[in-house]
């Protein structure tokens, strides 16, 4: 890489303690044009992708971050503990509803799920995956919820638009649900027994 700007950006992303947004990079490197910075970022993504090392430069939650490639998971967990626990089905369902329908009230989530969601919501709030957006201007002024930046970070999503569209989901329906579940059970690494951090049930 003979482009100094790319190296500088690489440095900044590498030392940042969370994903670094393009805006923030532009702010820090105000002697460069935004277009130059964007080109350098694209170049960096390419460089790391091509060299195919242990980590990649990825765009998540509106920012840039170096992340290890998923195939090396089993080696990494030999030395560090996994911090994120698997999410229960009710947590994922609730997250999905909030993600697609935000801003949304607790009553609306509960209507969709047909079940009380207080415990799940609180736990998602504590995990910072969901945040309070304010209060809805209707009688009773209920709180309204939305997903957080951490939600995008943890699930590796660039932004809310990169959520699978509900249309894609319908296409997936061609495969009966139970078959998909059996499929999941066949993969031993995917069945993780404990859910220590998220006691949703």
């Amino acid at each position, binding site marked *: 890489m003979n482009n100094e700007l790319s190296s500088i950006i690489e440095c900044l992303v590498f030392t940042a303690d969370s994903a670094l947004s393009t805006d923030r990079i532009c702010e820090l490197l105000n002697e460069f044009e935004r277009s130059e910075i964007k080109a350098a970022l694209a170049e960096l993504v390419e460089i790391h992708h091509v060299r195919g090392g242990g980590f990649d430069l990825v765009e998540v939650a509106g920012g840039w971050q170096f992340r290890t490639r*998923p195939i090396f998971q089993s080696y990494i967990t030999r030395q560090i503990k996994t911090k994120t626990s698997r999410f229960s089905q009710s947590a*994922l369902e609730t997250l999905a509803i909030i993600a697609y329908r935000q801003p949304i009230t607790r009553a609306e989530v509960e209507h969709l*799920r047909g*079940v009380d969601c207080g415990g799940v919501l609180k736990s998602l709030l504590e995990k910072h995956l969901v945040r*309070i957006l304010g209060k809805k201007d209707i009688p009773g002024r209920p709180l309204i919820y939305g997903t957080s930046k951490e939600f995008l970070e943890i699930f590796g999503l660039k932004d809310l638009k990169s959520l699978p569209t509900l249309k894609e989901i319908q296409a997936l329906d061609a495969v009966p649900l139970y078959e998909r579940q059996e499929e999941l059970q066949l993969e031993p690494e995917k069945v993780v027994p404990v859910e220590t951090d998220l006691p949703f049930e």
Partner: protein
Amino acid sequence: MSIEAHGYRDENLPLLDGFHEQYSVHLDKFDGPMDLLLHLIKKNELDICDISIAVITRQYLEYIKLMKDLNLEVAGDFLVMAATLLQIKSRQLLPVDEQEEPEVDEADPRNELIRRLLEYQQYKDAGMLIGARALLGREVFSRTVPEPELVAPQNTEGPLEVTLFELVDAFRALLQRIPAESFHDVAPGDSLSIADCINEILSLLQEKDTIQFDELVSDEFTRERVIVTFLALLELCRLKLIKIFQGNGHGSIWFVPAVIAELPAD
């Protein structure tokens, strides 16, 4: 996952208690009545858009009965759905009133339920898709060691980063720590509290200089609201935060901030 596999097998279980947890684990696999309904529809190979209410209702009630037999608490949500199913079933059984014009014949009573099921299934599937992603801290990892220079004492010029929930939670934690009697108005219930009203007025006064009493109660013109607003104003007046004026005899009541903006002397 299924009732058949784990439920009926041990009907004569001598020490039900010991297996209680095991049961509840399997039964809880259904994240609510919608989830259970979807399961029953799949199991019976029914089309969501043309479900047999009779079959589904029977199996649904059997499931609830099973939960009760196992001494499991049946969540109210499951009972609400049971009522809905029975209601739909009974409406289907009602003879069609021949007197009525065929034009206005009622929509299929199942429609609302079908719509909810389809919608629920979408989000359930979306949840599965999201959950199948490589998660940070689980399948993928970012760098954890901070650059030595970055460990330097944080300065305070940067923007603040904090969530509303953290703020509320901090207050809640505090309340748990201190004896309840330190607070006189912790749980005002659903009714309006004077403190809330004071906050509201203070917040309005940040936006404009004069406020009319009527403006404060116009949204919600109830006896309680008027009284609480009035008490809040008296309190604010006592604290010398506002000045109150009234136009002629029975005219509007106006008030303006009476803030002495002084800096702390330290």
